[in-house]
């Protein structure tokens, strides 16, 4: 194998394998994968952070 093939070959194999039986959360009639739950939770967290984290002030600039 060339160096390129080796590098990309290692890159292509996942560090964390998400294959295999999925993990699911059941809550009443709601059934959601842990993966989707993580994504949705991240969306909420990032949205809240985007609104709350202070934005660097810019000085100067005329009208």
């Amino acid at each position, binding site marked *: 194998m060339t160096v390129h093939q080796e590098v990309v070959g290692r890159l292509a194999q996942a*560090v964390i394998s998400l294959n295999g*039986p999925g993990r699911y959360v059941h809550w009443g009639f709601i059934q959601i994968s842990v993966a989707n739950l993580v994504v949705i939770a991240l969306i909420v967290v990032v949205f809240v952070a985007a609104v709350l984290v202070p934005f660097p002030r810019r000085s100067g600039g005329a009208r």
Partner: protein
Amino acid sequence: MSVPATRPGRTRRFRPDRDVEEWHGRYVPYDIVKEFTAAFLVVLLLTLGLAIVLSSPDEPPVTIKSWSQHAPLDFARTAVTELAGTSPTATYGPPYNSTPGASQSIGPLSLESIMGVHHPIDTALDDVIEPLKTLPAVPTLSAAIGQYTAASVGTEQGWTNAYGAALGHARFAGGRLITRPGNYGPVAEMIGALTMMARSGALDGALVSSKQFYGTDYTKPLLFIADGTYMASLAAAQHLQGTQWGMMNETGNFPGQSWLWLYTFWYQVPPFTTSTNADALVWAIMVVLTALLALVPFLPGVRAIPRKVRLYRLIWRQHYRSLATRVDHAV
């Protein structure tokens, strides 16, 4: 306060959820090209990272061959229903065939019926008889096909009903379907041959390339596979069934399509859980809700929500603080 109208001579009342006082205040330096370049690099790095760490799923497809090898009885039972014209595909209605009462409707309106049959499928011919005819001619099989196609509908039904029932108690051993003796006519020979054809892989090719060499239309083999229970059992194990909120999910532990949450939600609640028109109803609801989302700026109650919720006070807090500061400085 009034705002200039688009036509001269008319003004209209200022509505805070529709109109805005345009900005005549301070401007600050802003590099739009640099911002997009930074965003591009950030997303590129995130994408590379996720691809390296998590990769992507690729569960191998079900083929007629793999299905009939793993679950030959399920294949044979499905094949009998295709021949008999009682399978889900055979009784589907438009766009595959004209089955009275099969179309979904909302009240008197059935768009499915109006559009009609555009992908005609005769399951007996397309899934069983025509593929068997592509095999090198064997006298017993040719005779069986001839006997079946020459028989009356009633006779055919008698044979398929009997053989279908027999398959309910059958075994698969030594590469053959083993049923107790019965009056199956030529059906046992035909289904036996079709099962062997399937297990060899030849049926996959026959169903895709039935009209031309370069097939890219998998309608027939997919409908055939979906009529069985094998693929559905694999899907259930992966939480992909409709009753499992499957539309949102991906195989394994990969995130799926969380943006489809509302679409799949309706299938989990009555009356959609039991309605035969569930698909049509859910689509209609989603079309209406999507249209409402697009039309938010025109909907008086909905477009007032941001002003009432006041989250904007956090987003623009620097601006509101600067108003007081500037006025203080002006003192």
